[in-house]
């Protein structure tokens, strides 16, 4: 009676406080087994449903090893060795304290002997020592799930690296007794590196390259067994506002993954596959070969989010890329989308140093001289955009010929040449939205070029003097 009441008290405390204490492995070893069930196994990216049992039970797992040809990338085939017919292997979901009766079935069509090392097993070889199985045979062993967590499993038959490199890995979740929090989606993603004789993209059935494996130089690094396994129609799916839990494993055999989802921040990451302590607000989490992690996040913004190994040539050259598609209405506050795109002109550096026609700059003595000297400046500096006859270029550069914008305001013209102009202007009923740089010209030069412009192409025949420029201009830099 006393024991029971203590249990009830601890459950009550557990609900809201830090007094919640996880079971020790000794307690899990002793936990009574009630009933029996056959494990539901799933292929990536899906998981079996959460465990709702409140007691430990006997779980029977049948895992069949198949060696079969499959797609590694477009036009590239590979003979995968699999736990359950696909890479990664079937997802196994049990509860802390469960007794697992494990059947490893090696299909008679297979050539190789295989075994299994489950990182969730406490015992020699993680089960490998008890499960070496010839083709056409089946081995049985059992274990008690002593520690909760997300664990990977893999084949451990010599040469281990080759068995793993051919795809022999998967994941087993040992749920803690209190279960995992409720989320809208759980997904199973596992990275692996592949060593093909042919270079990346070389078509046809590619044999395993022992030398590339030993040198740790994979041709492919992929999620869920093939390039593109999580792209397009196969992308992970969610709706805006939903919560997602990713179980991310890394089969290796060699590379450590810098796992990242572009455009998301993981609200919580349970590193190293533990289920008790999360770290928060994580950008990229490291998944070692032979390890796993749980990443949880809420998707607040619709769009396509890219799963990558942030060791980026693996993502962009070797296949380690996937998609999470989030549907829903846009939230401009959370993310605006592109608001504008303008030419960037750093302060100072954007000013054009006008070509100096001569070191000795002549001074105009009258309007005619001013027009003549102005033509030289126009030809050197303005003609490329505004064209020889001042007609400009539609949609790009406004006309100077018969320009209402020019003729309406001489002072504005002085400021435009000396200080530049950016943004929308309407000239002769046409809108232009471009940039004119500031010109590093003297008062005399600006007066001359403007006078040239005003006295050509049907403009107002004004004269602009150096004194006017000096009064109204934007001061030159330096």
């Amino acid at each position, binding site marked *: 009676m006393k024991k029971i009441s203590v249990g009830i008290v601890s459950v009550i405390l557990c609900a809201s406080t830090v007094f919640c204490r996880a079971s020790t492995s000794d307690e899990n070893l002793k936990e009574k087994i009630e009933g029996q069930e056959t494990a539901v196994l799933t292929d990536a990216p899906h998981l079996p449903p959460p465990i709702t049992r409140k007691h430990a039970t006997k779980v029977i797992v049948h895992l069949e090893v198949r060696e079969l040809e499959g797609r590694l990338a477009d036009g590239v085939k590979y003979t995968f060795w699999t736990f359950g017919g696909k890479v990664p292997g079937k997802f196994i979901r049990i509860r802390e304290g469960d007794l697992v009766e494990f059947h490893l079935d090696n299909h008679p069509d297979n050539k190789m002997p295989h075994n299994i090392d489950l990182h969730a097993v406490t015992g020699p070889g993680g089960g490998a020592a008890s499960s070496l199985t010839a083709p056409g045979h089946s081995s049985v062993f059992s274990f008690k799930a002593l520690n909760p967590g997300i664990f990977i499993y893999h084949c451990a038959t010599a040469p*281990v690296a080759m068995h793993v490199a051919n795809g022999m890995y998967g994941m087993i979740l040992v749920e803690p007794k209190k279960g995992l929090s409720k989320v809208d989606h759980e997904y199973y993603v596992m990275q692996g590196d592949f060593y093909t004789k042919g270079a990346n993209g070389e078509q046809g059935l590619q*044999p395993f390259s022992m030398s590339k494996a030993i040198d740790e130089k994979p041709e492919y690094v992929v999620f869920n067994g093939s390039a593109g396994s999580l792209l397009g129609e196969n992308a992970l799916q969610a709706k805006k506002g939903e919560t997602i839990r990713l179980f991310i494993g890394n089969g290796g055999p060699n590379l450590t993954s810098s796992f990242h989802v572009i455009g998301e921040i993981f609200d919580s990451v349970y590193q190293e596959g533990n289920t008790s302590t999360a770290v928060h607000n994580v950008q990229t989490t490291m998944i070692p070969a032979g390890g796993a992690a749980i990443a949880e996040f809420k998707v607040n913004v619709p769009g396509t989010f890219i799963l990558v190994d942030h060791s980026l040539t693996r993502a962009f050259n070797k296949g380690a890329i996937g998609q999470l598609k989030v549907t829903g209405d846009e939230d401009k506050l959370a993310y605006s989308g592109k608001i504008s795109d303008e030419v960037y002109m750093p302060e100072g550096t954007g000013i054009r140093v006008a070509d100096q026609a001569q070191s000795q700059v002549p001074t105009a003595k009258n309007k005619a001289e001013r027009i003549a000297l102005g033509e030289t400046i126009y030809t050197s500096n303005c003609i490329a955009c505004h064209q020889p006859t001042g007609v400009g270029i539609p949609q790009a550069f406004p006309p100077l010929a018969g320009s209402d914008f020019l003729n309406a305001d001489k002072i504005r013209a002085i400021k435009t040449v000396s200080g530049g102009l950016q943004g929308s202007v309407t000239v002769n009923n046409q809108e232009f939205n471009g940039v004119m740089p500031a010109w590093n010209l003297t008062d005399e030069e600006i007066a001359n070029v403007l006078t040239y412009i005003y006295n050509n192409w049907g403009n107002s025949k004004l004269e602009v003097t150096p004194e006017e420029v000096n009064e109204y201009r934007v001061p030159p830099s330096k």
Partner: protein
Amino acid sequence: MNTGCLQANDRRIMNDRIVQLLLVLWTTASTAFAAPVDDMVLLPGGAYTPLYLENEKAVDLKDRSTPIESFWLDRFPVTNRQYLEFVTKHPEWKRSQVKRLFADTSYLQHWSGDSAIQQANELDSPVTNVSWFSASAYCESRGERLPTTDEWEYALADNGRDAKEIQKHALDWYAVPNAALPNVGSGSANGYGIYDLVGSIWEWTLDFNSFMASSDPRDSGEKNLFCGGGSLNTSDPRDYAAFMRYSYRSSLLGSFTGKSLGFRCAKDAK
């Protein structure tokens, strides 16, 4: 003596003439078509370096070189045709009569009956789905025995000829799923004139389970040759193909049979 290559071609041509498909009961007349029972090659004595040492020899790691006495080895794996003849003479090894202790339930399962092979074109392909006990009995019926693992590996090592090619051939075989077996002798002979050691089937050896390859090759326990991922203290941790053979053998028991597991016989030189 004919070269193995001609032998293989001869037998293929003869094979085309065989029309009986089902319930082919082979009598003494059929031996005229079969490969000569004593088509063996005498291998010279020598030494080679095994990947793993036998248990009792696993003492001195400095000198791994293992001496091999001269011995005879079958040029080809034993074929379905030869094995059919054997069970006809020794009915206790027929599928229906074999003791379960000596062969598991998959014994000769690719045959269509006790004394029949489904497909005539399988007659000259290697016999598979045979146990160690049945393979041993076959060799004994010829006054021979299975080769030891050292002898078998010594024959494959081929005195160091084309080592890389042999390894590649084996690895390439692993890289394709099981398919119909080709006739024996379809490949090319090695330097000793022996065919099909790798690239077609696995083969039983006399002492298949007496090596250090444990069921978990990364075992670092009491067997002191094994640690660090099962590769330290092997003669060549880069030879994945050899690892695979030792692993395969160590996954077997004497009664096991396999779809790609056959054998050939050997005998002492004297």
